């Protein structure tokens, strides 16, 4: 499809608007009927060429099937089905909105689909450029953009469909959440009403009891009181029935949308510090004992307070093996992890200097 004729239409419209006292909104450009003569006149446009005409003309011209646009110089073939009333008074705006809607339907990626915000912004920029070309580019640009759009649509059909569905689902969910919220609010309101009702009834009952306690009351009044109590009871029964019906429909508010967790590495309770916590040169399995500890192992003075002998064992073993591979001379002179050869040369150099100093 193309919008070739649209600028012309806009120009024509601008021209008539400036030269004629009667605006285009009031006169059909095809049959020249004026609004003055037909109060219910409605202007329709077709998205093919955006030439507006009154509904009478549309009926007249296109009732018998597709026909050419009645505007001079416009050779588009229009169908009756394509006509609709314009939402905007300015048809160029109408057209732009249509184009944008169409582009948005095709390029419907959400921000979550991109790895970084920058990527998403770049994508938005690309889409906007394309849209601009379609809306107000010259002939070649427009054709180019059109081709791009169609190519994209063809090649990413599945993806577009999926995104659209996702978008619809999100909309649906939002809508559902909203209705649930409304529902909950209504429920609360109902509860409040019922509570008030209960209170009122309680008050009535107590009053009734009070009246009953007045032993000598005449019959007529008692009947009246009874009836009043009954009516209120029926009312509350209806209310509770409604409330229970609502409870069935209620959905939980504020539920986070569940995301599929990425297949990740197993959870590490040490947060990557496992290497620093677990012993690497010894093991803390059973069989570690020392006569100096064993005599306290069943001593109530130690066990009652919850003293853990395994902790002590772990500490003792750690101290026995901590720093066994730390060679202070090498590490302080040359740094951790240097080869012995390097260290030796450095040490020799230092030794030489030291000798000289002592000679001095």
């Amino acid at each position, binding site marked *: 499809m193309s919008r070739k004729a649209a600028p012309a239409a806009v120009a024509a419209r601008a021209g008539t608007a400036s030269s004629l006292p009667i605006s285009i909104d009031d006169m059909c450009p095809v049959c020249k009927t004026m609004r003055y003569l037909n109060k219910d006149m409605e202007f329709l446009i077709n998205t093919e060429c955006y030439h507006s005409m009154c509904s009478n003309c549309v009926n007249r011209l296109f009732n018998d099937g597709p026909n050419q646009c009645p505007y001079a110089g416009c050779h588009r073939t229009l169908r009756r089905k394509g006509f609709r009333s314009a939402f905007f008074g300015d048809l160029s705006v109408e057209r732009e909105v249509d184009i944008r809607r169409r582009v948005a339907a095709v390029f419907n990626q959400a921000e979550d689909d991109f790895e970084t915000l920058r990527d998403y912004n770049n994508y938005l920029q690309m889409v906007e450029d394309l849209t601009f070309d379609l809306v107000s580019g010259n002939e070649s640009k427009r054709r180019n953009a059109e081709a791009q759009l169609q190519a994209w649509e063809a090649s990413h059909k599945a993806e577009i469909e999926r995104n659209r569905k996702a978008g619809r689902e999100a909309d649906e969910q939002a809508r559902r959440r909203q209705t649930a919220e409304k529902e909950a609010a209504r429920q609360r309101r109902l509860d409040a009403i019922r509570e008030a009702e209960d209170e009122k009834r309680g008050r009535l009952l107590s009053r009734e009891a009070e009246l009953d306690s007045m032993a000598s009351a005449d019959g007529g009044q008692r009947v009246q009181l009874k009836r009043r109590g009954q009516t209120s009871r029926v009312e509350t029964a209806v209310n509770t029935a409604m409330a229970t019906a609502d409870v069935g429909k209620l959905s939980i508010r504020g539920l986070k949308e569940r995301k599929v967790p990425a297949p990740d590495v197993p959870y590490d309770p040490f947060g990557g510090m496992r290497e620093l916590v677990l012993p690497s040169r010894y093991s803390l399995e059973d069989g570690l*004992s020392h006569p100096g500890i064993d005599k306290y192992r069943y001593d109530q003075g130690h066990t009652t307070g919850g003293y853990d002998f395994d902790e002590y064992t772990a500490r003792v073993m750690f*101290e*026995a093996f*901590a720093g066994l*591979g730390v060679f202070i001379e090498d590490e302080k002179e040359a740094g951790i*992890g240097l080869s012995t050869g390097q260290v030796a040369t450095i040490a020799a150099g230092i030794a030489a200097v030291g000798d000289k100093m002592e000679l001095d």
Partner: protein
Amino acid sequence: MASEDARYRQSSQFRLWSFSPAQLAAAREKANILAQSSIAARLASTPNTSAPTSNANTPDRDGTPSLPEFLTPAEEATMVSFYVSELLRAGDHAEVGEVVKATGAAFFRRFYITNSIMTYPPQEMLIVSLFFACKAEGIFPRIGDFVSKFGRDRPDEILAGEYLLCQGIRFAFDVKHPFRALKGASMELRRLGDIEEQRINAAERRAREILNFSPLITDAYFHYTPSQIMLAALSLADRGLAERLISHTFHYVAPPTDSGPGTPMAIGDAPTTRRELKIEDKEAIIGSQIRDKVLGTVEACRDMLAKELPERREHWSNKAVFKAQIQPIRKKLAKCRDPDRYNLVELQRARREQAGNRSDSEEDEPEDNGRSLEKDAAVFGDALPRDTKRRKVVKTEDPFGPPL
């Protein structure tokens, strides 16, 4: 990298108080030289000093007395070792635990690396070290009881040096000792199952005896890690056990594809199941190469400890030795010590006074010694009302105090 080693490297003992022999010698020399120059300057600025300078040296042609002969770093080291033995005796006398004694000795040695024995009095500092070691190890004796054990009646003699000591040891109060490690080693040996109980017990007893003396009086704490010291002591007690333990620990033999025929096989029973490591990691943590290195280090540490076996206790407390070796140095020390700083009580009083003056004049605050003590660290000694020049000392904000 082995996790135990990585954790040890985070300790203040490794970060602040481990040196190679060359570094340690350099630090001591530097402390000695700095002490000499500052003491010389101070002696020169006090024209009519007491007898020691004048009767030992003939006056120059200017009339100012020439400088006394200073101690050499080697002499200082001898004195420090002597005073450590004194400290251990004092600890025995005060009936404190072995860990407290060891911590006190470590504090004392650390303090006299960056400070010279000519600057601060070792006889006082050793009691300060011992007292502060009690606190560092979680035992809190009453200061009054503590000083009375040493026949003194003024607690401030000890309290005066306390903050000084803290600065000197750079606030590293945690000393890692090999005592508990020895227990771990004996546990591990017991688990092997094929060594007689008595042999282990005897070796442990002897090793503990060694640990209570030898590493403290030598520089072992500066050059080796506690586990290495422990193994060296164990090796002195029973060489077979120590080597067995090392070869059991570093049992890993690389798979035959890349291990040469000369690779020594691990002895001992089959290794217990451990968590899986990569081959190169295993090689680096429990491989044969590092085992040889550990063996070498332990051997070096053993040589160092062997010079000061527990039997040498007698040597240090021997009267004849004292007369022959220590007394001359002490006489020399009496002549060349720092006139301003040798009296800790006086020094602290002066600093407090100065702090009070300063806070009065600068901030119009009542005297608040505790808070301004830290600032004073940079300026001690200059409040003695003798020389106005000396008051102009550059204020530095180093919480560890000046080098001397």
